[in-house]
C-alpha cells in the first residue's frame, strides 16, 4: 500500500511538472491520446522530461504574484487532466467488460461443443474403451472432423472425468429430490448413505467391462488432482444431504471414511459376478457397519485423549525441569 501511495505522489509530482516541460519541449499534451494502459511508458516520458526540467528550476524565484498565477494555472490544468483521465478509465473499463463478455461467450460455446462430443463418445466406450478413438467416433457422429480430438489433451481421461461429473450431477439431483433440497429430516443417515452410494455405483454398471481401464486412468498421477476433487465433492454432497452439519474434525473423518468405502465397493463390484450385484451391496453394508463400530470405539477414547493431552503437557514440563531448561520461570 505504501508503494502505491508513493507512486501516486510521484504521478502528482510529474503532473505538476509536466506542463512546464510540455511548453518547453512543445509536446503539447499528446500524452492524453496515449493509452493509459501502459503506465510504464508514461512514467518513462515523465522521467525524461523531469530530467530536462531540472535545468529550468535553476532560475531564480519570481515575485509572489507570479507564483500565485502559476499556482492557479497549474490547478486549472490539473483539474482538466483529472477529468480527462476519468473519461479514459471509463472507456477502458467498457473495453474490458466487452472483452470479458466476449471471452465467456466463446468459452461457453467451446464447452458446449466439448460436452456434445463427449456425450456422443460415451456410447462408443463399450466398443473402443476410454480412449481417444471413442472421442473421435463421437466427434464424427456429431459432424465434427476427427482432428477435433486435439481439443482433449488428456485423451481418455477427459472422457472418464466427463462421465464422472455427469454421474455426480445426476446423483446430486436425485439426492436433492429425495431430501427436498436438504430440508427433510433423515431418520436413518447410515441407510441413506448406503442407498446413495449404491445409486451412484449402479450408474457404472453399463460400463463395467471397461471400468478397470477407467480406474487405471484415474490412478495416473497427472490426473490425480482432478480425480480427487471429483471424488471429494461427490462425497461431500452425499454427506451434506444425509444431514451432516458438523463443524468439528468429524467432518473430515466422515468424508474420508465414505470415500474409502466408496472406492472399496467400486473395486469389489468389478469382480462381482452375482446376479444384480447382491454381493456388492452386502459388502457395502458390512463396510458401513465396520465404520460405525470404529467411530464408536474412537468416541470412547475421546475421554482418554483428554488424559493423554494432560499427561503430554505434564511430561513436557517435567522433562524441561529435569533438564534444567526452565530458567526463566518464576
Amino acid at each position: 500500500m505504501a508503494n502505491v501511495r508513493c507512486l501516486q505522489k510521484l504521478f502528482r509530482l510529474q503532473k505538476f511538472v509536466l506542463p512546464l516541460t510540455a511548453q518547453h519541449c512543445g509536446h503539447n499534451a499528446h500524452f492524453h491520446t496515449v493509452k493509459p494502459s501502459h503506465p510504464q511508458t508514461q512514467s518513462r516520458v515523465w522521467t525524461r522530461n523531469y530530467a530536462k526540467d531540472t535545468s529550468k528550476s535553476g532560475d531564480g524565484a519570481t515575485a509572489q504574484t507570479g507564483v500565485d498565477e502559476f499556482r492557479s494555472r497549474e490547478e486549472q490544468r490539473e483539474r482538466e487532466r483529472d477529468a480527462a483521465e476519468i473519461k479514459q478509465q471509463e472507456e477502458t473499463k467498457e473495453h474490458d467488460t466487452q472483452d470479458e463478455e466476449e471471452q465467456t461467450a466463446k468459452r461457453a460455446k467451446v464447452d458446449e461443443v466439448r460436452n456434445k462430443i463427449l456425450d456422443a463418445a460415451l456410447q462408443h466406450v463399450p466398443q473402443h474403451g476410454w480412449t481417444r478413438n471413442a472421442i473421435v467416433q463421437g466427434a464424427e457422429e456429431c459432424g465434427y472432423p476427427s482432428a477435433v480430438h486435439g481439443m482433449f489433451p488428456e485423451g481418455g481421461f477427459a472422457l472418464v472425468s466427463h462421465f464422472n461429473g455427469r454421474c455426480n450431477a445426476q446423483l446430486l439431483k436425485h439426492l436433492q429430490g429425495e431430501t427436498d433440497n436438504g430440508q427433510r429430516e433423515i431418520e436413518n443417515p447410515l441407510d441413506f448413505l448406503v442407498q446413495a452410494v449404491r445409486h451412484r455405483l449402479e450408474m457404472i454398471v453399463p460400463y463395467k467391462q471397461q471400468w478397470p481401464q477407467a480406474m487405471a486412468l484415474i490412478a495416473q498421477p497427472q490426473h490425480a488432482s482432478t480425480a480427487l476433487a471429483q471424488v471429494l465433492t461427490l462425497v461431500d454432497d452425499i454427506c451434506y444431504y444425509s444431514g451432516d452439519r458438523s463443524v468439528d474434525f468429524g467432518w473430515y473423518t466422515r468424508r474420508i471414511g465414505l470415500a474409502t468405502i466408496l472406492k472399496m465397493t467400486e473395486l469389489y463390484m468389478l469382480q462381482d459376478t452375482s446376479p444384480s450385484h447382491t454381493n456388492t451391496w452386502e459388502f457395502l453394508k458390512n463396510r458401513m457397519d465396520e465404520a460405525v463400530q470404529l467411530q464408536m470405539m474412537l468416541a470412547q477414547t475421546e475421554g482418554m485423549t483428554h488424559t493423554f493431552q494432560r499427561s503430554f503437557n505434564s511430561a513436557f514440563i517435567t522433562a524441561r525441569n529435569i533438564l534444567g531448561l526452565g530458567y526463566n520461570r518464576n
Partner: protein
Amino acid sequence: MLILLRTQSEVRLRTVTRLLAAQLVAQPKQAFSTTTSEHYDIIIGGGGLVGTTLAAAVAKNKTLADKKVLLLEGAPEFKGFDGKGPYHNRVSAINSNSIQLFKAIDAWSHIEASRYKPVKQMQVWESNSDALIQFQHENFANGVACIIENDLILDAVYARVKEACNVKVLNRARIESVRLPQDSGCSNSEVTLQDGRQFTCELLVGADGANSVVRKQMGVDVFSLNYERMGLVATLELSDDAGDNAVAWQRFLPTGPVALLPLSEKESSLVWSTTVSHAKELQAMPPEQFVEVLNEAFCRQYPRVDLADKAVQALNAFFGHTSAQHHRQYPPRVCNVKERSRATFPLGFLHASSYVCRGAALVGDAAHRVHPLAGQGVNLGFSDVRYLVESLASGAYAGFKLGDKQHLVKYEQKCLTKNVPIMIGVHGLHTLYSTDFSPVVLLRSLGLQLTQNLPPIKNLFMKQAMG
C-alpha cells in the same frame, strides 16, 4: 585532631552507607510488615512424617543451625508413642536411604530402642500365572527394608525437633491462605492461618499432603489420576507356623495387590488395595469372616493363562533353574485380626511438574503421590528432605537468601530425576497388573521371571527401590 577526623569520616561513612542502603532497599511494592506478623527463615506447612523430619534435619544441619524454623501442624499436639502398647495399623516400609537419614538426624537410636522389624526377604507373585520374584540380599546379610510404625517415626523426629532451639512448633495451626513473591512482589512469602495469625518467611515449604494449599497457590502444573481404589489396613495375628516372620508377602489379585508386612514374630500388618466397594465390604465384615477371606486371597486359584505358564516354564528351563529352586512359598496363616484396627484410605496418583518457585518448595505427598504397592511413598518424601536440606545448606553457605530460585531449582532437578522413574514404574505396575488380558499377562509374567533370573536387573531394581 584525630578524633575530629575520625568523627568526620564516620559521618561521611554513615551517610554513604545510608545512601547505599536506601538504593538497595528501594522496592516499590514492599509490604510493610505489621507488628502482628512474625518473620521466620523457613516455615514448614504440615507436621506429618515428612514435614517434621525436614524440621529435624534443618535443625541438625550445621550451616542452617542459626535459621529460625516454624512448623505449622493442623492437628492437635502429638500424643506420643507407647512402645509397649498394641501395634498401630499405619506402618511404612522404610528403605536403607531413609534409615541413613534417620541416623544422620539422630532419630534412629530412638526407633531402635523401641520396636521395628527388619525384613529379610520379599516374595511377590500374581494370580494369573506362575511367575514369581523374591527379593533378598546375598545370604540374607542385610535387611531389604524395615517395617516401622508411622507414629514411632513421628515420635522420634518430634523428640529431635523439641530438642532443637531454632525450631518452633505450632499445633492447631491450619493454613488458610498463602501469598508468594510472584503474586505480591515483595521478597518474602506470607502465610495466614485460619485463626488470623500471619507469618512471613524467606522460604515456605509445603509438606501438607496431597491436597496441599501451598501447591495450589504456586500454580504448578499437576497431573493427577484417581485410581478408584482404596487401601485397607489392619493389624493381624498369625498362627504358629510363621517361623521368625521375616518375610514380606505380596500377591497381585485382579482387584489389586494384597500385602502382609511383618511387625513381630507373631503379628503382621495388612495393606490390601482393592476396589472401593470391596474395601468397604471388607471393613464391615465380622472378624472371623474377614480372616477367612484374607487367607483365601493368598491361596485362591484364579483362571490362569496357559500361554504365560508355558512361557515362564520355558524361560526357567532356559536359565537352567529347576522349579524346585524358586519354589513358591505361601505366607503364614492368619488367625485373628485386631479389633478396630481395620481402616481404609483412598489411593491416587499425583505428580507436580515443578516442585519449586521463588520462595516456596514442595516435599513429600504434596509433590508426588504413588500407589502403596511398592512401599515407596514416604521413602520418596524422605529423599526429598535429604536433597532439600543439602541444597539449602549449600545455598546459605554461598550467601544466597533461602527463597532464592537458583538452589531450589537444583533441588528440584535432583528430586525429579530420582522420583519420576520410580513413579512411572509404580504406576506401570499398577496398570499392568489390573487386567487379565492374555497378552498383558504373558508380558508381565515374562518380565517378572526375567527379572527374577537375571541378577543385574534384579539388583538394579533393588537399588532403586530399596536404596
